[in-house]
């Protein structure tokens, strides 16, 4: 597992630098997003963070690493788990940076409100693991080319939803916000199990 993660970090550094710069750019923009009408800017970095493992899997397939991995003392469950761990790591880092950007933005917009900030964190934590959770099972089952369609659908749905997702109006939502990230993590765990099942049966 350590070897797989090490390889993914090498790939991340070589292939996803532009992605990282893009995420940082959006984070800076989201920190200065004004009074909060820009849900897209606030949440999009999380989508990008989660998408990195999707990119890594696409490279693995295109460069025949998946087939090579089958010859190494690595199980398919470990291979899938490695991708989900990478996804959690990337999403986690972007979540922390997004949280910092949100705190900065809320302070900038006339005073930091604790409840507002917790709501923001809850939404960020909910969004972060979802793109990978929704796309990876399809990529493991049908291959990355077909699986990428799912990613574009996720992006489309996200963009459409930002029209309705108004950041400041989250304040005072009666639903216990902590439930949302927990539900998201449950979906992520279910997605991991599904991916393991799909990939163990797939013939490369």
């Amino acid at each position, binding site marked *: 597992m350590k070897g797989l993660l090490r390889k993914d970090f090498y790939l991340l550094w070589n292939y996803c630098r532009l992605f990282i710069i893009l995420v940082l750019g959006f984070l800076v923009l989201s920190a200065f997003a004004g009074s909060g009408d820009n849900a897209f800017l606030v949440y999009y970095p999380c989508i990008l963070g989660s998408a990195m493992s999707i990119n890594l899997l696409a490279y693995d397939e295109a460069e025949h690493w998946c087939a090579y991995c089958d*010859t190494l*003392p690595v199980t398919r469950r470990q291979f899938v788990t490695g991708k989900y761990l990478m996804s959690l790591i990337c999403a986690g880092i972007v979540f922390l940076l997004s949280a910092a950007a949100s705190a900065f933005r809320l302070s900038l917009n006339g005073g930091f409100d604790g409840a507002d900030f917790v709501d923001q964190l809850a939404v960020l934590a909910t969004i972060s693991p979802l793109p990978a959770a929704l796309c990876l099972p399809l990529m493991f089952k049908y291959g990355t080319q077909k699986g990428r369609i799912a990613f574009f659908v996720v992006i489309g749905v996200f963009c459409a939803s930002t029209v309705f997702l108004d950041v400041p109006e989250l304040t005072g939502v009666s639903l216990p916000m902590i439930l949302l990230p927990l539900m998201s993590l449950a979906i992520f765990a279910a997605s991991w199990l599904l991916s393991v099942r799909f990939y163990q049966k797939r013939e490369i």
Partner: protein
Amino acid sequence: MNALEIRDLTKHYGDFSLDHLNLTLPQGCIMGLVGENGAGKSTTIKLILNVISRDGGTVTLLGKDNREELKLTKQDIGVVLDEVGISACLTARQLGKIMKDIYRNWDQAAFDGFLTRLAVPRDKKFKEFSRGMKMKLGIAAALSHHAKLLILDEATSGLDPVVRDEVMDIFSEFTRDENHSILISSHIVSDLEKICDYIAFLHKGKLLLCEEKDRMKEEYGVLHCTTQEADAIPADAVIGRKVSAYGCELLVKRDRVPGNPSFSPVDIEQLFIIMAKEEN
């Protein structure tokens, strides 16, 4: 103990079937798997590594069923695939670090030794390598964790003759240890002829022949004769024939030819081509 035992291995794809394949590779030996494109060589290797599901039969790798604890067994197996499969952005140095975390017995000194011997640059990215260089890095990685069995799928294709010879020497050195074995598939029959103890002919998913190379050479021979002399040879002795203006060239089973004619040694490639044509 045999390094590899395949019994009645069967796999059906759309219009292709691997048909009750039986192979035995004793420890300390090299077996060459010869076959045209689509003969089933890569399918056989995938089935050996349990990468694809089989429809029937058993595969025993280093004494263990390949469905049980294969992850552990793979610690003792080195594999080089046709496409190698190393990520394009990785360097040999980075690959060494990755493999150190994957293989229990990874030997960095041995890996460095192979890189030097095969003149593989350490800090150049894999995508900048020539095909031959890519293959050499794959071979170096496969040989650097004290494997007992090497499985090579077209590992010598794309190598220039000098490097190919060098790689063949490395494979021969590897099997000096009686616990080491190699299964190698290749189109280049001359390579296999040079180093293999056993040769297996695979054609359209069927095993045409699997025999010790030396025995194969003893058993089969080439007879140069006139057309009239050729007609006098029993049909069951003749595997194939080539007629030209200068006479007849017969590929025969030596023990079935009456008298004591003088045979030329058989060429393995020629034998395979004739057997495949007969099968067609």
